[in-house]
């Protein structure tokens, strides 16, 4: 992982996120805006449900015969003059990039946003080889300057106020202090233009690879991906092996829902469909195109229960709808993939022991499944992850015992009624004005921030029965 967040445990990271009122304000603003934009964006389609069904179909078909599509894709990329590399894991991916950089004598690399490069920790690998790497996406550039990691898939710097960004640019770029986003953007544009025009190598991700003709499709709103892939002499594109679609028609199905799900736009401003390096008579474009297909655990996931998680097209809609993510943001997750999708993908790809807490950070409300453009059943996947052996043993003893007792009580109506009577007497004895301000551990966590109501004098069924009896008279 690049620029790894603190090694503090998940609950400590969550706590610090919850204390950060400015972060929570920023998250609230961003996620509610994106949610609204997504709803409007999808509503602009003649049949949004059909569009999502179609998108899911395309991705399911892709994964169903992934081997065949990958072979065809690699074949077509080579036929167009690109060089295809296969990376089994993160280390290999970085080695391949370093080798390409070494052979082309690259000292300066410009990057457009790519989650898979963060996953494999590419920036750190390049930097330790003495190569300067500059992120060109404005949000990524900002957090790179700040030495932080992204807090959201689509808007990486969403946790920063404009005052913080102004201060950062003032310090790092030497521009006069400003709070005007337009001025800051202009300053970043100037700084980054030098990088675009001086970089030896451009590194990008790939939104979708098209198997039928070896096209790689890259989308952006800023045009940074377009410049990254057009100006430098060498273009290296990293792609997770699952990011394919079979044909160009399938690509248009995916593009129809991608931008709408992410930001509500009908289309991203720039969609670059790249097939091979520049042709001989073309005036510009890269002399060399390298496509690195990264596995890093994906083929293992494909063969397992969590295979559905590979349908993901990285739109970020699930993050914006998740009540947990909306409170704690991306940094609390402590890994490159955050939110509901990250809570499944990270343990699935990188090992359940280290990330076993993530799938528990969910209310299973299903909001993520509601908004997913490819209809991934995230709640089911989260439950599956919770049942992983490593994850299961991590549950605290009081929770496991408590759940067992609860199950015993609710499956035996007489025991349930008895427990209710007991709880009623207990809460009413200790309540003040009908509320308990402090519960003993392990329930103390509840009353740390809210009161617990005393149980009513009569249960609902008792009330109902007595009213029934009254009516009968």
């Amino acid at each position, binding site marked *: 992982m690049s620029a790894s967040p603190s090694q503090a445990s998940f609950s400590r990271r969550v706590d610090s996120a919850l204390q950060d009122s400015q972060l929570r304000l920023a998250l609230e603003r*961003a996620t509610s805006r994106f949610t609204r934009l997504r709803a409007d964006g999808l509503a602009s389609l003649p049949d949004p449900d059909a569009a999502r069904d179609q998108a899911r179909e395309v991705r399911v078909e892709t994964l169903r015969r992934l081997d065949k599509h990958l072979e065809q894709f690699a074949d077509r990329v080579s036929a167009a003059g690109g060089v295809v590399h296969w990376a089994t894991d993160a280390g290999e991916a970085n080695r391949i990039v370093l080798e390409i950089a070494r052979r082309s004598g690259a000292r300066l690399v410009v990057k457009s946003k790519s989650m898979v490069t963060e996953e494999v920790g590419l920036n750190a690998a390049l930097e330790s080889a003495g190569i300067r790497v500059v992120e060109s*996406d404005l949000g990524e550039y900002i957090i790179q300057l700040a030495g932080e990691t992204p807090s959201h898939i689509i808007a990486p710097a969403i946790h920063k106020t404009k005052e913080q960004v102004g201060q950062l640019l003032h310090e790092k770029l030497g521009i006069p202090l400003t709070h005007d*986003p337009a001025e800051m953007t202009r300053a970043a544009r100037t700084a980054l233009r030098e990088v675009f*025009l*001086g970089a030896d190598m451009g590194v990008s991700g790939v939104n979708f690879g098209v198997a039928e003709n070896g096209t790689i499709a890259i989308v952006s709103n800023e045009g940074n991906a377009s410049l990254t892939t057009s100006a430098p002499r060498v273009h290296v594109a990293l792609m997770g092996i699952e990011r394919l679609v079979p044909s160009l028609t399938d690509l*248009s199905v995916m593009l129809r829902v991608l931008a709408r799900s992410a*930001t509500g736009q009908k289309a991203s401003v*720039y969609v670059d469909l790249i097939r091979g390096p520049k042709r001989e008579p073309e*005036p510009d474009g890269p002399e060399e195109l390298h496509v690195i297909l990264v596995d890093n655990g994906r083929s293992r996931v494909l063969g397992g229960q969590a295979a559905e998680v590979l349908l993901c097209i990285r739109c970020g809609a699930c993050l914006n709808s998740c009540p947990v993510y909306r409170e704690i943001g991306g940094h609390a997750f402590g890994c490159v993939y955050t939110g509901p999708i990250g809570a499944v993908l990270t343990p699935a790809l990188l090992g359940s022991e280290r990330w076993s807490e993530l799938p528990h950070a969910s209310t299973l409300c299903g909001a993520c499944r509601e908004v997913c453009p490819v209809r991934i059943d995230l709640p089911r996947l989260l439950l599956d992850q919770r049942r992983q052996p490593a994850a299961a043993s991590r549950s605290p003893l009081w929770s496991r015992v408590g759940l067992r007792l609860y199950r015993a009580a609710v499956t035996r109506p007489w025991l349930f009624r008895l427990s209710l009577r007991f709880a009623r007497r207990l809460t009413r004895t200790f309540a003040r004005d009908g509320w308990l301000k402090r519960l003993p551990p392990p329930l103390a966590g509840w009353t740390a921030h809210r009161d617990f109501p005393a149980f009513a004098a009569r249960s609902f069924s008792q009330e109902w029965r007595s009213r029934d009896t009254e009516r009968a008279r």
Partner: protein
Amino acid sequence: MDIVREAEAREILGWDQAQLPVLGLAEAFAEAGVRCLDSRLPAEAETRRARLAELGQAGVGVTGADAALADTGSLVLSSGPGRPRLAWLLPPRHIALLPLARLYPDIDAALENRPGLQGDAAEVALVSGPSRTADIELTLTRGVHGPRDLDVVIIA
């Protein structure tokens, strides 16, 4: 020419005259004392950087358009001989000359009518407006890395 004058551009980065649907532009530029830059990028590092620095000075980029899509407001631009990609990416202002006959309702219609649209181009770009970002506090700003202004001139 009006746009070029308004932008006070001294240099243009554009597609070759042969690739543009409007005749006489080369002459018009010459008359106005506006220089059309050589868009070819050398493969060698030093000279490439020097050429790129020069191209970065262009005030306006001029291209044609292979197609345009009405539903998303997109231009379809493909690279090719005499068609630099940087023309629609680098300058702060981009003028796209679009023949009316190339305007289609959506991508499916475009592909139906022009099956060879992708051709052997190394790149086909769909451009749907000027460059933008909302990365700083969700405030929308135009002209981030790509052009700030995009003018589409429809030629009947």
